[in-house]
């Protein structure tokens, strides 16, 4: 790689954005190298998580053929927690094997699969290659420096994740702002496949996704999550970073997960588990209004590096946007294969296509979501109010009396504040 020969494209980061990009480029005959700082693809990557498949049918259908999905999600639930009680909205659907709309993945396996597929198309995916800086020449990016060696390319794709030091070096982002980031902490716990299927009432190959709001995060913006994999469960919490200051001195993230796992509505689901991995990762949750410029001539940002994550409260999407952006960047580069891949025109083409694609369209449509989801009432006021209201409806006191429905509602209205609740509901409906 150091013989001075110029590649068409160097992709920085073997995650799902970078590998989808490399696969598309290499399939169309360009010379591509992917520099990954970990030993292998996926070594530094973490997801909650699930991948939404429908948006990728056209863009990545071929690449995802035979991908190692853990389970197809057929059961969704949002759980409101308060103390030892909870209530939930749940949807069980039978989208099934033939038409899965989302599937759980584990990144070590999944990214390695993508790397192998890109390798089959003769992209060079190389581990232990940490990119330290950009090479700039004649007002554009002309390659990267890896361990003191020059790797020259006509265009560089920065798929270097949420911390993207390359975006920062290129001046595309000053620094990361805590209010635009979620801190996700996850445990991977082993459980037999048959046990998972029994406890979540799903068939082999099918799985469940659960989101928890309320005191799982001590009432701070964020939530708990649980996704079933083949023979393991991904369980964890996400908290908005700028809210961390409000947490108690002694209360660590690890304690938060431990308490979450001990909840009476969670513990029976995971009983007998074996913890095998503990991880943490940041999530760019600033949405449309926090998007950086998408590149400079010779450098295109994709995936988390470009801040392409959409959290609407009911959907949390990152990997599908990442893969889509990788393919869209590749197609823009391919448009200019006879000309200058590093030209400002190529960058403009990418910006325009991505902006007109579902990736940024959806983020724009939900641009108010980060603001609305920062509303502490969603986490602090509503879960207890709803749980307490339901609890009062299902209880009989020592005098032999139950609470009339009317009084239960009145009590809830008093706790949440009728007008404040109306305002919050109106805001959420605008999402």
């Amino acid at each position: 790689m150091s013989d001075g020969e110029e590649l068409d494209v160097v992709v920085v980061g073997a995650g799902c954005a970078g590998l989808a990009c490399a696969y598309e480029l290499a399939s169309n005959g360009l010379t591509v190298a992917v520099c990954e700082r970990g030993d292998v693809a996926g070594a530094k990557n973490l997801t909650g998580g699930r991948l939404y498949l429908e948006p990728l049918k056209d863009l990545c259908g071929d690449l995802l053929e035979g991908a190692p999905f853990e389970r197809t999600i057929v059961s969704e639930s949002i759980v409101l927690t308060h103390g030892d009680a909870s209530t939930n909205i749940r949807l069980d659907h039978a989208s099934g094997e033939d038409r899965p709309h989302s599937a759980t993945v584990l990144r070590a396996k999944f990214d390695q699969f993508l790397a192998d597929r890109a390798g089959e198309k003769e992209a060079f995916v190389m581990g232990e290659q940490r990119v330290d800086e950009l090479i700039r020449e004649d007002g554009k990016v002309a390659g990267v420096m890896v361990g003191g060696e020059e790797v020259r390319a006509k265009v560089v794709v920065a798929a270097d994740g949420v911390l993207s030091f390359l975006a920062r070096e290129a001046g595309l982002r000053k620094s990361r702002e805590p209010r635009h980031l979620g801190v996700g902490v996850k445990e991977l716990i082993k459980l037999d496949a048959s046990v998972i299927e029994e406890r979540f009432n799903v068939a082999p190959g099918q799985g469940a996704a659960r989101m928890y709001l309320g005191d799982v995060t001590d009432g701070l913006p964020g939530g708990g999550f649980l996704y079933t994999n083949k023979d393991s469960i991904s369980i964890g919490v996400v908290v908005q970073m700028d809210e961390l200051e409000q947490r108690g001195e002694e209360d660590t993230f690890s304690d938060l997960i431990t308490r979450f796992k001990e909840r009476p509505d969670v513990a029976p689901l995971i009983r007998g588990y074996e913890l095998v991995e503990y991880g943490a990762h940041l999530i760019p949750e600033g949405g449309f209004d926090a998007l950086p410029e998408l590149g400079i001539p010779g450098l295109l940002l994709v995936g988390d590096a470009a801040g392409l994550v959409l959290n609407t409260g009911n959907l949390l999407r990152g990997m599908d946007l990442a893969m889509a952006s990788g393919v869209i960047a590749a197609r823009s580069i391919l448009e200019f294969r006879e000309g200058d891949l590093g030209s400002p025109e190529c960058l403009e083409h990418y910006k325009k296509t991505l902006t007109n694609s579902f990736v940024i369209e959806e983020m724009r449509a939900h641009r108010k979501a980060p603001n609305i989801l920062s509303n502490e009432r969603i986490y602090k006021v509503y879960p207890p109010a709803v749980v307490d209201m339901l609890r009062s409806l299902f209880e009989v006191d020592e005098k032999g009396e139950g609470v009339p429905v009317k009084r239960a509602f009145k009590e809830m209205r008093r706790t949440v504040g009728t007008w404040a609740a109306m305002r919050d509901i109106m805001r959420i409906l605008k999402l």
Partner: protein
Amino acid sequence: MKVEEKLALNAIKNHDESHIVLDEEACVRCETRICIRACPAGLYSVEPATNKVIVDHSGCLECGTCMVICPLDAVTWRYPDPGYGIRYRHG
């Protein structure tokens, strides 16, 4: 289960040299010491004898929270050298 015990389950190769360097002068002035609560791996602590904030890089999950959240920009953080640091076996 303590966070140290959880970290001990991970596949990780710690470098002798830390990839996290603190600006001690800034840390002395710091009132929040938010890094201690924010680090998901619990790597930050106060050295009792000196009351200084210290960080033990071994076990780092490479999330970058400390670097971003530090109000005084006192955390110099880079990716560990190739071949070192966390290697997620599942992710």
